[in-house]
């Protein structure tokens, strides 16, 4: 089975990010990396082809710098990587991203002479947490869609997948080609070996320019406009009750709550 995994490059989500003086998030301490859910999707894909045959291709939309996450993906089992170049993607909405991916995927299929049976995205990105690109991509490609899968096995119909629900799991059979989003399976993405890592660092990743994808003007016009970042209001300092005796402290607490009409 030919599987494509879409990877978004995001800032390291273990770093606390605040707005800088210019009102933009200060990302200087947050190294770029592959979105966690996309790396889960890739691990699921690599395990699938190891078991059932096929190959995994990865693709990412964004500036040149996105090749970092693609090289990381090549080190852990992806056979090929494609960069869909768009310096302005950071301001785009989920629909534009999905449309550009859809147009880019067709170009990748042409370039590599393949037809993807399964296209995977992470269930959401750890920066924007929109959780919409997978669904919109399926719509743009006119393919069946299953969200939040954690397992996939071949099936007479195409694929049988385990979809995570809040209350448990749903087993879904679907024909392929299909688009799916991946949640967190009960395993972690593998570590690259030094050999695969060094080899991946040397790979020249082909780029498809946005202009060459044939995306229409309408498809690349955001429907949702980014208004700006705003920090949540700081919590006001509370009242410290510092009476020595517990009885006095309780009395004081009641006095404050009564005055503030909490009681």
């Amino acid at each position, binding site marked *: 089975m030919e599987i494509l995994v879409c990877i978004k490059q995001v800032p390291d989500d273990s*770093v606390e990010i605040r707005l800088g003086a210019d009102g933009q998030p200060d990302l200087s301490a947050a190294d770029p990396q592959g979105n966690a859910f996309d790396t889960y999707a890739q691990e699921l894909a690599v395990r699938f082809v190891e078991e059932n045959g096929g190959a995994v291709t990865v693709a990412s939309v964004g500036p040149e710098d996105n090749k970092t996450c693609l090289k*990381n993906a090549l080190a852990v089992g992806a056979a090929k990587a494609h960069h869909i170049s768009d310096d302005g993607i950071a301001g785009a909405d989920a629909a534009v991203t999905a449309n550009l991916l859809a147009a880019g995927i067709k170009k990748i299929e042409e370039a590599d002479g393949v037809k993807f049976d399964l296209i995977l995205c992470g269930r959401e990105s750890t920066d924007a947490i929109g959780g919409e690109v997978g669904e919109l991509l399926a719509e743009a490609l006119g393919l069946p869609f299953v969200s939040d899968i954690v397992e996939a096995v071949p099936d007479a119909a195409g694929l049988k997948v385990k979809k995570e629900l809040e209350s448990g799991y749903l087993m879904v059979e679907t024909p392929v080609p299909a688009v799916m989003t991946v949640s967190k399976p009960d395993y*972690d993405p593998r*570590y690259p070996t*030094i050999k695969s*890592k060094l080899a991946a660092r040397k790979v020249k990743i082909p780029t498809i320019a946005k202009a060459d994808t044939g995306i229409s003007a309408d498809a690349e016009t955001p429907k949702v406009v980014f208004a700006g970042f705003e920090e949540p209001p700081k919590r006001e300092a509370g009242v410290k009750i510092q009476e*020595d005796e517990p009885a006095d402290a309780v009395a004081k607490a009641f006095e404050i709550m009564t005055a503030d009409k909490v009681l």
Partner: protein
Amino acid sequence: MANYNTLTPELIEQLKAAAPGHLLTGDEINEDYAHDEMPIYGKRMPDALLMATSTEEIAAVMKICNENLIPVTPRGAGTGLVGGCVPMYGGVVIDTTKMKQILEYDLDNFIVKIQPGVLLQELADDCAKQGYLYPPDPGEKLATVGGNVSTNAGGMRAVKYGATRDYVQAMKVVLPNGEITDFGASVSKTSSGYSLLNLMIGSEGTLGIITELTLKIIPAPKKVISLIIPFEDLESAIATVPKLKAANLGPQALEFMEREIVLSSERYIGRAVFPKEIEGAEVGAYLLVTFDGEDEDSLFDLVEKASDLVLEEGAMDVLVADTPAKIKDAWAARSSFLEAIEAETKLLDECDVVVPVNKIPDFLTFSKKWGEECDLIIKSFGHAGDGNLHIYQCSNDLEEDEFKRRVDIYFEKLYEEAVACGGLVSGEHGIGRGKVKYLKESVGETNMALMEGIKKVFDPNLILNPGKVCYTL
């Protein structure tokens, strides 16, 4: 021999007046204050507990205790492993965990000033936000930095950056008589008489109580990569270490771990991180190595050289952790070893010994042989880069007295062997109450007499943390 007095109601009133609202007695004291993380070394509740908030408050309480011969035991987060903060003779415990302010940074001079109750993790995180690194990295991140200084804690990065001692520039101390003094200075070198600062570091709360610390920090390395290196057995893993060091690649951390302890840890944290099998062959041991550098390309050159070397020396493979999430996962398993052992063990003791690096395999073989002789379960890990081994003795079926009897025989043998091959009793956990006997045997009477003499100069009434390090009753 000191004759201590007990706390009378009048003395408690005096202490309460000296520390209004911060002195607890009787049932107000949580039973955790009777022990540290190694309760096998004895438990005892304090008669009073000071939740200290200032140097002056500690000084006032110390003065009263000194004048009335009341023993005082300082305590940080209680994460020690040698019974160092257990008030074996009752009296007052002074808890510094409420003194947890990071006071100021002087980034031009690479200095941070803190109160002693700041937790290691809090200091590390705060320094990282400034773009700096506080290099000491002991496994227990919820220890107080004051506690780290008191035991000269080492940790993972000691192989490149040294132990806590190397990062303490100055401190404010309350002496046992209540006097407040400063040791050291915020300058990078000194040659100004005996180093009282260095006497305090590693003195385990027996000479004075640290109430403020001036610490050295360094610009944070721009890029960090960890390598998980599986081997078929521990011997081949350890045999690689001197060669890795000789190659002058400057690893920041260089840890070894055996298969069993990794399995325990992964059961504890609930996720599998390390490979257990490489191309059909079972992995028997691992090295976990971290390199740091200023840019990715030069760091990968270093990592490639290190990988070539270990593969030539018999490593089964080299796995690369170069993203924050992967590095965190690899080290989370390593950092949970002690908790993992505790979770699976009823009775536990530990030998925190340091030996020359090239003696590690022989020493571990010796430790296993004597584990079998004494019929104790032995679990080991440690800092391969500096020869500091943590060898745990475990039992789930022995009675405590019998366990202690066997552990005593075991310790005698191990420490004798450690000293014979050029090592010492403790690499980083300290002596506390648990290792006094073995320290005496290891350093000899002359050195113990010097230590006792120093103790008496600082603490003539012998009220501060009695029964620990060099002074037993």
